[in-house]
């Protein structure tokens, strides 16, 4: 596999950006709030270095298997990150709203079906089953991620959940990258690799360039401090809890009684 100047440039740029982002996450203490996201970035740093040396010293076959091992890990981490972001948005005080959880799970299930159906329709022109699995897998992952992020956006707005700045930045970056990924992975599938790989390379370069923009967005967004939340006074918390308990009892008695 021959690496062009653009391949090397994008490789170096993503490695540099990942290192800077990892430094921001660690030294600005964001890693504590976003451990899964930090793990993904750390994995990407490690992956970039390992893949470079694998390609140079072990050849294309070893590179392919190493690439896809890391790719599976990457996708698994992305799903963990979705969960991490979901808990930040929908469980800011530690407990799920039962309605929100039920609706989110239903919508996620429906998203899985939609992504699976679209992936099933996809028949990329490739020379091997392996390449077909790769392309369909990438498309499935982009489609599902895009759906999950849009669900988060829609549900949080509808149910009135506010977004803190850093959560919003991470979600926006992933959301944009995933939506764009539908386009690039769709293009990969359409053009395939059966006749030539030039178009595949061009589309990949565009995808990686956008990813670099997303990482830069995360670097600047996560480096800045977000507004501090106030702590609710203990007296008020107790008063509200007591009021909620009395209200619940009163409403329960209203439901149980009947007025002639």
């Amino acid at each position, binding site marked *: 596999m021959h690496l062009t100047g653009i391949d090397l440039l994008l490789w170096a740029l993503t490695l540099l950006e990942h290192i800077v982002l990892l430094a921001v996450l660690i030294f600005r203490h964001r890693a504590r709030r976003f451990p899964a996201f930090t793990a993904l970035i750390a994995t990407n740093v490690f992956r970039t270095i390992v893949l470079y040396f694998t390609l140079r010293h072990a050849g294309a076959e070893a590179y392919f298997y190493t690439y896809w091992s890391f790719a599976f890990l990457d996708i698994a981490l992305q799903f963990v990150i979705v969960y991490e972001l979901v808990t930040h948005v929908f469980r*800011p*005080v530690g407990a799920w*709203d039962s*309605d929100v959880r039920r609706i989110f799970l239903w919508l996620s299930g429906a998203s899985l079906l*939609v992504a699976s*159906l*679209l992936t099933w*329709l*996809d*028949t*990329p022109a490739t020379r091997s089953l392996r390449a077909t699995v790769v392309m369909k897998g990438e*498309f499935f992952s982009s*489609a599902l991620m*895009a*759906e999950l*992020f*849009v669900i988060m*956006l*829609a549900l949080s*707005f509808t*149910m*009135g*959940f*506010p977004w803190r700045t850093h959560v919003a930045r991470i979600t926006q970056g992933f*959301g944009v990258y995933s*939506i764009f990924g*539908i*386009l690039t992975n*769709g293009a990969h*599938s*359409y053009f395939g690799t059966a006749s030539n790989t030039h178009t595949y390379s061009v589309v990949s370069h565009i995808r990686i360039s956008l990813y670099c923009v997303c990482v830069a967005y995360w670097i600047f967004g996560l480096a800045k401090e977000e507004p501090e*939340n*106030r*702590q*609710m*006074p203990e*007296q*008020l*918390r107790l*008063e*509200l809890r007591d*009021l*909620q308990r009395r*209200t619940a009892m*009163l*409403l329960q008695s*209203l439901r149980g009684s*009947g*007025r002639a």
Partner: protein
Amino acid sequence: MSQLPFLVGAGVFLVAIIATATYFLVRARRAARTSWMAILAKLQRIDRDKFATVALDLLEERENQPQLEPAVIFDMIGGMEGLGALEQNCDVLIDLAAYVQKWYPEALEIANELRLNSREIKWHIGRLRGASQTGHLYEQFPQYAQRAVATYYLMTRSLLVLYEGGRVPGFAELQQAI
């Protein structure tokens, strides 16, 4: 040609995703720019004293005092029109509680409680709308309307405690309005 179903499906999917994301982003931006006074201004005018009387008639145990007569309840609430205003006000109360989350994330619990209360009120009002179509509004009105008003009254109390205790700006205006 074999890729046509996939291209059409992926195209429709992509447009739907982008359109949905854009719709909610625009609405979220618009909501963020909405001032607190603009939210308060959406409250429909109701006679607070009369509504409180109807609510307390049900909520307080008054062994010696007679309960309000159904006709009186109907007049004090203002019939279905009064309940319609109440129904719209529920959404405003939820927005006012959600607004406090900017300072206190724990206000989310209050907003969720109000959301549940609002759902219950709308259920009661839905029953009454059904009853008005079948000609049984007058018999059923006291039962469901008074519960709706009592629930609304409790919602307003929760909101006032939240604003007062949290020293949230606008407490005085809120107290006047609800």
